[in-house]
């Protein structure tokens, strides 16, 4: 852009050239942004349409009326109320467990030294580089043997385990930046390690808790592969992503219902995102810096 403005300089008065260039940038950004959001706006409009309207009015973004029938059908007959609840349980459960377990491990790994610490750190580092995502079958078998198959616990525990190593490193790095004095003061006051962790260290790590929490919530709201495999025998345990996928198979002509189901799945996480977008983006950016 700056290049464009520069080449205009000799022809036009400086201010006018820059102003026009800036407007052009905004026009392009808004136009592309609209196209970028179009699929979401389109499915939102589709969720209010009647089947006939959905068929005939093609790409239009404005439904003729705000018809809520599709939502009623998806929520009740389509079981989206159940899927919604399951997704909340999984996303909140995994997020809390990952925050708790990885901050605990990160704390002792960064602030205490004990026999075996190097072994643990080395093993964790090795795990970061081994390929993940190819071990679903033994995981499935293990979950079955533990008697957890077709429970939400299986999804929660497997996804928690998957998030622990990376986030423990994040917490380790964060705790390492906190000076020893504060912690030592607490220990002198007679606090033991759990008290120091819970009342002193964890509160100080709030920014990292927020980062890990948002990222985990987003990932687990959207998780597909693990819940797909672990709830295959029990449709009442499906999460929104899995439920929506199966709903398409079962309602291959009910596109307006599917649209309503898609909106129910997407809107909550979008709302969370737009309210907390600064933190979301900082969380993502933090992952590349750390």
């Amino acid at each position, binding site marked *: 852009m700056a*290049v464009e403005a520069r080449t205009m300089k000799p022809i036009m008065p400086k201010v006018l050239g820059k102003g026009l260039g*800036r407007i052009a*940038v905004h026009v392009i*950004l808004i136009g592309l*942004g609209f196209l*970028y959001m179009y*699929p*979401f706006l*389109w499915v939102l409009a589709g969720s209010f349409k009647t089947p006939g309207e959905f*068929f*005939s009015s093609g*790409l239009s973004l404005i439904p003729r009326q705000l018809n809520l029938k599709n939502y009623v059908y998806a929520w009740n007959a389509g079981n989206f109320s159940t899927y919604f609840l399951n997704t909340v349980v999984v996303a909140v459960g995994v997020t809390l467990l990952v925050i*708790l377990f*990885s901050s*605990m*491990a990160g*704390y*002792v790994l960064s602030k*205490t030294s*004990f*026999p075996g610490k190097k*072994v643990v750190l080395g093993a964790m580092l090795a*795990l970061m580089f081994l390929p*993940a*995502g*190819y*071990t*679903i*079958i*033994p*995981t499935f078998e*293990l979950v079955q*043997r533990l008697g957890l198959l077709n429970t939400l616990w299986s999804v929660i525990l497997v996804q928690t*385990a998957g998030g622990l190593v990376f986030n*423990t490193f994040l917490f380790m790095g964060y705790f390492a930046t906190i000076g020893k004095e504060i912690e030592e003061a607490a220990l002198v006051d007679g606090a*033991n*390690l*759990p008290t120091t962790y819970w009342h002193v260290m964890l509160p100080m790590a709030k920014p990292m808790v927020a980062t890990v929490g948002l990222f985990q919530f*987003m990932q687990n*709201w*959207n*998780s*597909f*592969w693990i819940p797909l495999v672990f709830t295959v025998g029990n449709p009442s345990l499906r999460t*929104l992503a899995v439920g929506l*996928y199966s709903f398409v198979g079962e309602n291959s002509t009910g*596109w307006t219902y599917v649209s309503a189901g*898609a909106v129910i*799945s*997407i809107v909550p996480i*979008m709302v*969370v*995102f*737009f309210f907390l*977008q600064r933190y*979301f*983006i900082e969380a*993502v*950016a933090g992952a*590349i810096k750390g």
Partner: protein
Amino acid sequence: MALRIDTAAVPGIERLATAVSPATRRQVRKNLWSYIFLLPLLVLVGLFVVYPMVASINITLYDWNGIGNPTRFVGLRHFFTVSRDPLFWNAFKNTFTYALVLVPIQLTLALILALVLNNPKLKGSTIYRAVYFSPVVTSAAMVGVVMTMLLGGVGDKLNGLLLDIGLIRAPIDWLGDPRFALPVVIAVGIWHTLGYNLVYFLAALQSIPKELYEAARVDGANAFHQFRYVTVPMLRDVGVVIVFLAILGSLQVFDLVLVMTGGGPYFASEVVSTYIYHYAFTPAAVQAEANVGYASAAALFMGLIVMGITIMQLLAVRYAASRRSELKSAPAAAGERVPRGGAYRGDGADLN
């Protein structure tokens, strides 16, 4: 089996607690809380990450439909079958096509957008950033469903628009035509995860010290020169990580393909992860019997290939970095003033 899990879960701790010197034993007792705090991590990761990795190697040696215990030992036969299965190599080719087409296009677009949005004088850049990032917060499965409807043959959708403006003469079955299925999935993939790379690039751009640009401007560098001789070299290290993550992420593509095409039509968009999924869970799609052993062998085979690529990339990066530091130290050692741009130019050559 329970025993195997335990040793996998707590590497070294039991051994350390029972063997070795009294001093170590005292250390262990003194740090009891540390071990307790590590326990959830060790147990969960041991059970659901380490054990499956080890066990999957064992499963590859059996014929097994996934019910009961694996009994028929076949040794390494599955690996030979996988390495000679044209369907596997088709899926392999599609996976790499997906990654090698998606990554350069997506990263170029993300970098251009990041450069535009990084301009501090641009009003509303946080709003634009949020808009372009928003597809990232939705799952590939949900996105796949929406896109399937938008592209689908039912009614007057994208095809209607393209017919109206005369770009096509007959409706195209975007996901049902073998020529279009994979390119369409790639296009949706580019749209879906571009936001990650946009934010990565923005973070990297913001970490470049402003003084560098000021110094370049004082030296008479124009916008292009500033980009070429300040931005590009400063972005290189983070850029390598971004490329890394993008390639690794796209080699594991699964949800989007499964939801949009199921790997079809006629395996035209089959990727390795859907190939494995079919053999393990929905064998009808590949006209075979469920064979978890075979699926695990294919998974391990692909996992090793991906790991090999990762290691090669790491080595290449390290090599490039060491060459770069040699080049950088040379003129400084000679006590010369580094000519503007000159050192960077020599610098850039080693990557190309």
